[in-house]
């Protein structure tokens, strides 16, 4: 068995004295692990950093084996983001979420493209926090638990959508949601505008919303909770919002 594929490094774990077990999100082979011989060495360690884009080659005698990996670096996102605490926390959170939420060896081309786009946004966009929330929205959709924010679940109206039902994941209008507003989740307006025009408080509300559904629908059924890297990302963002007065 052998394949080569475009991939993003999600995480690494030491294996023995010199090896690494690397988790990748590949374009056509889904989330896939492999053993990198000599991966802890000076030459290979910079390649296998979380968030780096690589061309990976995986080999094994049988498909169910762990197999061995080799990789060539395409884009060193990790090194570019290390200086910036917010962007680095975003990268760590996205990688940890993908590592925990995406099923192993199940192709999700959309998820790969979305994560690659998020990494590009982290490299250059000022609105990377919004890009992250939109990425979590797409993660929910790709895994089959997308939110329906197109119209009100109760009245069908498309106007003044300000809540989301925690049960159905559908938007609810201000009028229909008024009697139940303590039980409904807040819908930040930028999610209705594909991320356009947001402020830090809205981004944090967006993270609360996606975090609720990710935890409830993806992690809890498997006895897991949201990864600590995501909580740290939210903490960093909250601190940045406080400093900037958002």
């Amino acid at each position, binding site marked *: 068995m052998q394949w080569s594929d475009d991939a993003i490094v999600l995480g690494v774990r030491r294996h023995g004295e010199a090896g690494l077990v690397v988790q990748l999100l590949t374009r056509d082979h889904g989330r896939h692990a492999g053993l990198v011989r000599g991966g802890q060495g000076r030459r290979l360690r910079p390649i296998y950093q979380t968030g780096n884009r690589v061309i990976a080659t995986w080999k094994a005698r049988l498909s169910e084996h762990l197999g061995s990996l080799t990789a060539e670096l395409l884009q060193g996102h990790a090194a570019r983001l290390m200086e910036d605490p917010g962007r680095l*926390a975003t990268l760590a959170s996205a990688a940890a979420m993908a590592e925990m939420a995406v099923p192993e060896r199940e192709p999700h081309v959309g998820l790969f493209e979305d994560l690659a786009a998020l990494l590009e946004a982290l490299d250059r966009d000022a609105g990377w926090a919004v890009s992250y929330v939109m990425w979590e929205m797409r993660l929910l959709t790709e895994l089959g638990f997308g939110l329906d924010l197109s119209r009100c679940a109760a009245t069908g109206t498309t106007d003044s959508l300000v809540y989301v039902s925690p049960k159905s994941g559908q938007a609810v209008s201000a009028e229909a949601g008024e009697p139940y507003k303590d039980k409904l989740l807040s819908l930040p307006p930028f999610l209705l505008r594909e991320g356009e025009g947001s402020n830090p408080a809205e981004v944090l509300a967006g993270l609360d919303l996606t975090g609720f559904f990710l935890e409830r629908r993806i992690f809890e059924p498997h006895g897991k909770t949201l990864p600590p890297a995501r909580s740290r990302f939210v903490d*960093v963002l909250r601190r940045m919002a406080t400093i900037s007065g958002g």
Partner: protein
Amino acid sequence: MWVRTSASRPMNELDRLIQLLGRLPGLGPRSARRAVLHLVKKRESLMQPLAAALAEAAERIRPCPICGNLDTTEPCAICRDPRRDAASICVVEDVADLWAIERSAAFAGRYHVLGGTLSALDGISPEDLHIEALVARAGSGEVAEVILAMNATVEGQTTAHYILDRLQGTGIKVSRLAHGVPVGGELDYLDEGTLSAALSARRVL
């Protein structure tokens, strides 16, 4: 079990020694056998002093309650040394990193060993590292600068940013090691991450 013993023969002292040495980093079964043969041949000049040294080290070496360094005294020799600058603390991931900086003889302050880095994959959270002890040391009033000497990995830098957050508001200067071109390094052979870090951290001459 990789130690070759016959089915009728229980594992003897020699096999046990080979098995134990084979667990050391850098030694496999073959090199463990060679090491054991060498020790047996040099019984008096090497094996017995080594056994005594190991027993003594196992008995006496303890982590320093202040910095986490390994030593036979509490506090360790570095924390007790009055010639070292108590106002500077260099934070490292492991004792091996402390030794590496000591070998360079470039730092005359004191250390703080974290015992690892934050890692989502390995489930290492801030509570698993000696971060609270660092914050307490930094708040003692004696410290003026904390140098974050973490590895240039995503985990290492995530930990550095976390510590920076924890130390904010204390008024202590927090710095970190530079990232860039190593001494003797040729640009043509450097990975793009190191090059971009070196460019973004360039200095005016």
